[in-house]
């Protein structure tokens, strides 16, 4: 970035065929994606899926084995971190312990010789409502305050691209919610491109315009949060993003609009448009909140899937809804969320129930659950430890 100037607006980020191999394992495997300028993009995945490594590759803290990183159309793959128009809010905050809060925030401005660094730093601290603590040292602040200073320190530079590495991980739930809103406000106000890495699916869904679900160094599915939730395309996404009831069986009937799958004698119908595969053995599923819990066998109606009878084996009350686990013979246990429209549970433990849902609410996945279930997820701690070592 040119010294003394701010980015006019967020820049788009493009990753082309990115690979990153560490001795012994592959962290990123042929990753390509485009993040449009000014959007809030979330990289969501379990620990060790390569999301932090992706972020470090964008920041320049890690060099890709092959592939390119483009920011605003410019290839920055060979550029050093301090030359890139990117700032990071680190998971560990990494606030300089020997400097006051205000000096921490002014650090980047001073390095780029921006005029009035202290004034701008105060402004950024006011944005995160911490200006009154400007003279403190970072270690005198609470975790949440440190996190906000880290955010101010990055945002004050108005980078074309702001990278957030699980920045809310250390906060308690209430502060987390508050910071999520603040982050979103800041992003909208200053119009920067945010790339947010998180393993918290709720956080990703509430904040981001686009969510990419990562698994084993590759992107499984990418799209708007609603789209990803309502129409997952793989077993991993269906299980990682919220909960799913999944069934696997052969396709026994195929019409112009729907396919019917035979699951141990029960027919489950899924619309063609919501199924990734239309022949052979497929895995179909439905979200727990789409299920209706019925106390007697309903009259068969077109456009409804019904399974049962099953037995309620667990009831757990969580305020707004109640979660029932229903054991259906030959189909396994299914999860059902029911809104608490009445006081107390509608079905008691051990009750015989039927479950039904609208055909339009089901989905068919591209891969088959049993195989996908064998997928192992690595540990993030290993990866982060390796990350910080590899930079030295």
């Amino acid at each position, binding site marked *: 970035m040119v010294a003394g100037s701010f980015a006019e607006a967020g820049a788009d980020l493009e990753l082309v065929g990115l690979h990153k191999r560490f001795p012994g394992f592959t962290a990123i495997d042929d990753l390509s994606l485009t993040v449009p300028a000014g959007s809030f993009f979330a990289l969501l995945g379990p620990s060790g899926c390569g999301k932090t490594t992706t972020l470090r590759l964008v920041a320049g803290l890690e060099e890709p084995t092959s592939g390119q990183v483009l920011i605003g159309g410019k290839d920055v793959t060979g550029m050093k971190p*301090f030359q890139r128009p990117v*700032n990071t809010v*680190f998971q560990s905050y990494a606030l*300089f*312990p020997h400097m006051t809060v205000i000096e921490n925030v002014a*650090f980047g401005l001073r390095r780029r010789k921006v005029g009035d660094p202290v004034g701008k730093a105060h402004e950024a601290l006011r944005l995160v409502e911490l200006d009154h603590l400007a003279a403190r040292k970072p270690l005198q602040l609470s975790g949440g305050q440190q996190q906000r200073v880290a955010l101010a320190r990055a945002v004050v530079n108005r980078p074309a691209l702001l990278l957030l590495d699980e920045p809310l991980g250390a906060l308690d739930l209430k502060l987390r919610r508050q910071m999520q809103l603040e982050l979103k406000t800041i992003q909208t106000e200053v119009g920067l491109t945010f790339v947010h890495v998180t393993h918290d699916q709720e956080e990703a869904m509430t904040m981001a315009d686009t969510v990419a679900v990562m698994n084993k160094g590759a992107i499984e599915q990418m799209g708007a949060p609603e789209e990803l939730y309502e129409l997952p395309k793989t077993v991993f996404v269906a299980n990682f993003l919220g909960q799913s009831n999944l069934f696997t069986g052969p396709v026994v009937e195929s019409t112009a609009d729907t396919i019917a799958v035979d699951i141990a004698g029960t027919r489950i119908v899924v619309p063609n448009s919501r199924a990734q595969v239309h022949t052979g053995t497929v895995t179909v599923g439905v979200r727990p909140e789409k299920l209706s819990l019925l106390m007697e066998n309903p009259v068969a109606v077109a456009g409804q899937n019904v399974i049962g009878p099953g037995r309620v084996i667990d009831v757990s009350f969580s305020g707004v809804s109640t979660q029932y686990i229903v054991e259906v013979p030959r189909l396994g246990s299914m999860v059902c969320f029911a809104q608490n429209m009445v006081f107390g549970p509608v079905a008691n433990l051990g009750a015989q129930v039927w479950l039904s849902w609208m055909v339009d609410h089901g989905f068919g996945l591209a891969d088959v659950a049993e195989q996908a279930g064998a997928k192992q997820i690595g540990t993030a701690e290993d990866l982060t430890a390796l990350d910080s070592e590899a930079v*030295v």
Partner: protein
Amino acid sequence: MAIAALAGPTVTQEAPRKKSRIALVLLLPGIFYLVLFFIVPFISLVITSLQVPSETNFGQFDTAFNWQTYVDVVGQYSTQILRSFFFALLATVFALLFSYPLAYFIGVKARRWPLLQGLMLVLVIAPFFISFLLRTLAWKQILSDEGFVVSALKALSVLGPQDHITGTPVAVVFGLTYNFIPFMCLPLYTTLERLDVRYLEASNDLYAGPFATFRKVTIPLSLPGIVSGTLLTFIPAAGDYVNASSEFLGGSSSTMMGNVIQSNFLVQLNYPAAAALSIILMAIILVIVSAYVRRSGTDDLL
């Protein structure tokens, strides 16, 4: 315990006093040691420094309050006093310049290879296994006029035909630097080994290049190591009398305060002068060190 149980309701009040009594008992050997081997000799040194030569018994000294000795020795040995601190300063600076990259490599860069890290640390500490007198004598041999260093430098015309290395200030500063490098290196290593590289990454991310990162982040974060390393080097180097002695690397043009004190005590038997010089040396070091520690920030050091 039995007594405490018998004491009944006052037990809670007794507890802190009992604790402090234990602390006192534990401190006692240390206090006793300090009084016997520091306070008493120090008072004796002060008394000696104020003594005057006995008028009746030659070679004996009578107790007096002759502070004139201090004025005399400062006048007489001002060159050696200034030289001592100048040499110590040079040795400290050279040791720091040499040790910092070494300690940084062992403590930060070599983290990925624990074996190399351990090996290099052993190499830094290994010289301690041999007496420093022997090592300094070895350097006298290496740097002697017949040694290959001098012959090589003469062949390259760096040294003239009549020049020496031993007996010159260069040899003394070299010897001091060499002998104190481990004292500089180890404290630096301990702070750099704990240096969190994520701060360096953050600095890099905030537009600071390698040099700015080193100046603004690495150095301030390793300041405790720099302060203790320089103190561990400067204080003993200022009072060192081995390197500058003519039996080792020094000569008449490189005499330091330690040599003057030694010769006053052991050769000239002028005990008051030697005692006064010792106290002056101690006082100057105390002033320099406290000013230095205060400037570099005590909270970082502690």
